[in-house]
């Protein structure tokens, strides 16, 4: 046997005793994978905090200053509340909606665009963990920005929270819902333009018309009915109930709607991931 073939044979023998790629227990693996993805997503937006956290704080400070203090003083009361108090829930929720949505849409689309989504696709992470990791990142940014805006609000007014449980639940579910929306937008997006279309042309108008700055009872009957078709109205009002104890909408309907949307968007996201829409050929 020549030295070359002897070496080859030796290598083949060694190869039989291949090292095992021991897979950690399933739920440990899922937990670690979720935490890794969540941590990565948090680092992403924290690293670029000037782009991701600061703008919302500056914008809402201006809202409070102009609409709350300057114009609000002339408006007087709405639903029996000082105008500045009335707009706090809407402005906080607007920041939560925008940030949870834009975090997921930009992060997931960037991972598609630069193809590093493949790092996840070749890993044993199940689809629902991938979805959960991205959504958790979006929810975290939404809640963090929401908390910062709330702190800004407290510099302008003295709020007494009506129900902490309802407030926390609504803000969390809203962040979750819009993070899911951002994910679906990213799946279908084919360019960076596509990830700005929905926030600019759909989310912003719906938010402004969702009772952030006014009570729908001020509107004529017809426009009140039209406003009821705006899902953001329900979230703003449920949050306003949690914070201030007033709402244009029954709480049960608001929660039912939010939970229903979350269920539908979760299923849709998982179906899209399973089919590899936008990420597999």
């Amino acid at each position, binding site marked *: 046997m020549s030295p070359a073939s002897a070496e*080859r044979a030796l*290598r*083949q023998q*060694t*190869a*039989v*005793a*291949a*090292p*095992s*790629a021991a*897979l*950690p227990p399933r739920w*440990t*693996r*899922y937990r*670690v*994978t979720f*935490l*890794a*993805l969540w*941590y*990565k997503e948090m*680092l992403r937006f924290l690293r670029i905090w000037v782009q991701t956290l600061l703008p919302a704080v500056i914008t809402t400070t201006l809202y409070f200053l102009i609409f709350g203090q300057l114009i609000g003083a002339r408006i007087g009361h709405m639903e029996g509340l000082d105008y500045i108090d009335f707009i706090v829930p809407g402005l906080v929720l607007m920041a939560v909606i925008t940030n949870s949505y834009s975090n997921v849409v930009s992060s997931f689309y*960037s*991972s598609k665009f*630069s*193809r*590093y989504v*493949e*790092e*996840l*696709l*070749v*890993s*044993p*992470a*199940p689809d629902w963990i991938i979805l959960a990791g991205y959504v958790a990142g979006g929810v975290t940014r939404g809640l963090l920005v929401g908390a910062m805006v709330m702190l800004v609000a407290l510099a302008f007014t003295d709020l007494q929270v009506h129900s902490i449980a309802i407030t926390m639940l609504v803000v969390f579910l809203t962040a979750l819902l819009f993070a899911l929306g951002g994910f679906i937008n990213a799946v279908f997006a084919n360019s960076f333009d596509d990830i700005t279309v929905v926030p600019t042309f759909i989310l912003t108008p719906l938010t402004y018309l969702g009772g952030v700055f006014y009570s729908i009872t001020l509107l004529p009957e017809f426009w009140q009915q039209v406003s009821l078709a705006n899902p953001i109205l329900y979230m703003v009002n449920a949050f306003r109930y949690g914070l201030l104890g007033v709402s244009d909408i029954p709480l049960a309907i608001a929660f039912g709607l939010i939970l229903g949307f979350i269920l539908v968007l979760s299923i849709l996201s998982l179906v899209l991931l399973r089919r*590899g829409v936008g990420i*597999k*050929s």
Partner: protein
Amino acid sequence: MSALVVQGLGKTYRNGLRALDGVDLTVAAGDFFGLLGPNGAGKSTLIGIITSLVTKTTGRVRVFGYDLDRDREQVKALLGVVPQEFNFNLFLPVAEVVINQAGYFGIARREACARAEFYLRKLDLWERRNTEMRLLSGGMKRRLMIARALVHRPRLLILDEPTAGVDIEIRRSMWDYLRELNAEGTTIILTTHYLEEAESLCRHLAIIDHGRIQAQTDVASLLAELNTETFVLNLRERLTGLPTLGGFVLDHIDDSTLEVQVSREQSINGLFAALSRNGIEVLSLRNKQNRLERLFLDRVDRARNGALTEGAE
């Protein structure tokens, strides 16, 4: 045990392109396997299906006995992949890319950090661990993709043209490391356009073209098929005419360069004896074409001609 068994694998893209047409392939555990084929032959599609980046149309894939459809998580845990194109977040530091990947495979952060250090040191990237990806050279990015693919210690490593665009020194060091990995028991599948690379590293190989496996054999048997080799000789003195070297077919390239065909029955010793008899002194000698390259082109040509004949019939 087979590391990889592919049966009747087919892939037709939405635009109607049939990239794979009933591919059958078996790779033994511990092998260093080369997958060769011209551009557009179906290599990347095949790798894409095995690594779950492309959905298959028909067929079956098994990795160390696990079925890709039924046991997807186990299959993925056994696989490491180094893709042809860079696919990482360019704004992340080097170490984080590897640590994140470990996390996706369920490896806890402390262990992930230790493994990242091990593989980054192994691939000479540890000093660059805090550098953002976009600031690395092409060779460093290639090595990082290998570190990333190894961090979960896969049993089957698939490399899609891992040394493309890498300078010769780094390429050689990558070859050494791949040999070391294979000797430690990792099965390796390599696609490459450098046939010298395949000849140097692989024990078995398959040639794929038009979405079909055209040949699957061991490198030694394939090289034994070579009937003639062509050598280019650089001569000390200029030749005025073409000399007669009993039995060797010669071609005159220029006054001081000859091309000689040496058949399997002939020998280099015989060639030099004939040259000496004619008073021709040789300064240097080289293969005109890599041996595997020659066979590869023959096989691809044969397959294409076969396909044309079938089409005509």
